């Protein structure tokens, strides 16, 4: 069984993790100046590490579920062999002769997901939303409570829903009352996209701040601080950027001959 602390850095390697972290962070951010070999190297390293980690953890999770720990198959619960065999069938993707066998697990997974999503989605994203909109308070004590009053929020939501939906209504030409509704709907959609953009900015800033915290505050037993390495990493980035600038631009390779021309040559 793979140790449970897979994915965590052992304490004895903490110093190396900090060193690696500083270089990886700054090399990746150097992409903002210009794409360069350092940013590409760390990018590829990240993809490789993520793939290996996912493979190891998935393998462990599948076998722990069926064999190790639970002993399900050993206890005669052979139904657990079916998902394992189905998973192995994915590897037929790499053969030309048996490629059709790869389609079975794909079809089964797609079928399961379709079945699950249809029932769940209709309830959660459709019926529940309609019920909630229909129950919005417009009159009564609940509607007048709060500042601004609840009825105002309800009214904005109702108008927003109707006008935004009308924007996607193409049966009639967008003129007259429908045209007005469509115009309001467009503003509602723009406000929604604005809110989403605000959220995106907030999220991206948080991630940047997180990396800055690492570069400024991370330390190894309070004698080796991450920021010691920042100038070294920056100098390396600068050297590579200048080097790639001085390098002659590779000439564009000549276009390969068209398939028809190839055939003619063979003949």
């Amino acid at each position: 069984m793979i140790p449970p602390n897979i994915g965590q850095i052992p304490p004895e390697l903490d110093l190396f993790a900090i060193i690696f972290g500083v270089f990886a962070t700054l090399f990746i951010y150097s992409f903002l100046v210009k794409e360069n070999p350092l940013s590409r190297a760390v990018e590829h390293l990240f993809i490789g590490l993520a793939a290996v980690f996912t493979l190891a953890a998935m393998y462990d999770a599948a076998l722990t579920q069926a064999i190790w720990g639970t002993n399900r198959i050993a206890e005669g619960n052979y139904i657990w062999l079916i998902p394992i065999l189905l998973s192995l069938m994915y590897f037929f993707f790499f053969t030309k002769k048996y490629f059709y066998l790869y389609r079975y697990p794909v079809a089964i997974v797609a079928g399961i997901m379709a079945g699950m999503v249809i029932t769940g989605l209709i309830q959660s994203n459709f019926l529940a939303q309609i019920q909630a909109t229909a129950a919005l308070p417009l009159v009564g004590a609940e509607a007048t409570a709060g500042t601004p009053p609840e009825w105002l929020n309800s009214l904005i939501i109702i108008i927003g829903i109707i006008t935004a939906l009308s924007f996607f209504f193409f049966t009639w030409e967008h003129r007259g009352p429908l045209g007005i509704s469509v115009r309001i709907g467009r503003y509602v959609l723009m406000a929604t996209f604005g809110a989403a953009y605000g959220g995106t900015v907030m999220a991206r800033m948080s991630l940047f701040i997180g990396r800055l915290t690492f570069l400024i505050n991370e330390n190894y037993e309070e004698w080796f601080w991450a920021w010691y390495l920042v100038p070294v990493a920056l100098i390396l980035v600068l050297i590579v950027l200048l080097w790639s600038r001085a390098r002659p631009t590779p000439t564009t390779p000549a276009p390969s001959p068209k398939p028809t021309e190839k055939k003619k040559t063979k003949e």
Partner: protein
Amino acid sequence: MSTPRLARIDRRYIYLLLFLLVSLPFFYPLKLPLSVGEHAQAVWDVTEALPPDSVVISSFDFGPSTITENRPQAKAHLYQCKERDLKVVALAFWISGGPLGEMVLREVYGEDFPDIPEYGTRVVYLGYVPGNEVGMQTFGDSTVSAKGTDHYGTPVGELDLMNEVTSAADFDLWAEWTSGTPGEQQVIQFVQGRHGGPSAVPLVVGSTAVSVPGMMPFYSAGQISGIMNGLSGGGQYELLVDGEYGYPLVEALPLLDSQSVAHVLIIVFVIIGNIGFAITKYGGGQRS
């Protein structure tokens, strides 16, 4: 500066300015005032309303890329659960959430976790539960079918706490720390939907800010009981936990000054961009 030049500011100057301004509060904290919003308050209220010994699911469905936002949220909420004597079943439906969840649990329950007296009776860590949405639904139907062992290889049948909770209906709160799929929408679709509707398992969410606008309809409909919105939501929650229990693991609060500065800068850039656009459009210049 002529209009075309305004439109052609080298983006690298913007990055540099952003870097300098965001770094500044690290050295000179601004200590800007922070108020707790309605959504973070709702998470607090729902959790505080639970009687002691209630069982909470803490689901670490995020990766290292959003650790800055999701970790403070999960940590503060877990600390509140611990202080309130709530039982916790922690797990991850994201493969990368497995090690991150363990990291958070160690910070809250101590470095010796899981070798602590309350492990198995008051707190359990199941680790990664495979299957994404299918795993989530299976866990909602039957906990033991979704994961036969905990993160450390102990069969769940040997853990007292897991014998108390056989399906989602046995839990009192689902706390979802998410930055994508599977996340809160999958809990709503595949767990709440199968167990009698929104009231079956109250759901609170700590999410990256980018996903929060999409969650609002679910919050309004009562399918989500409370939301921690990104780093800011985490900071607000830390404020609440610190006020009530004294929180020693504060992480998000000191970073909010930097975030406020960054937001002001972005707003300024948006205004400049719009002025540039207006000048180009109405001043006779060329639109770039």
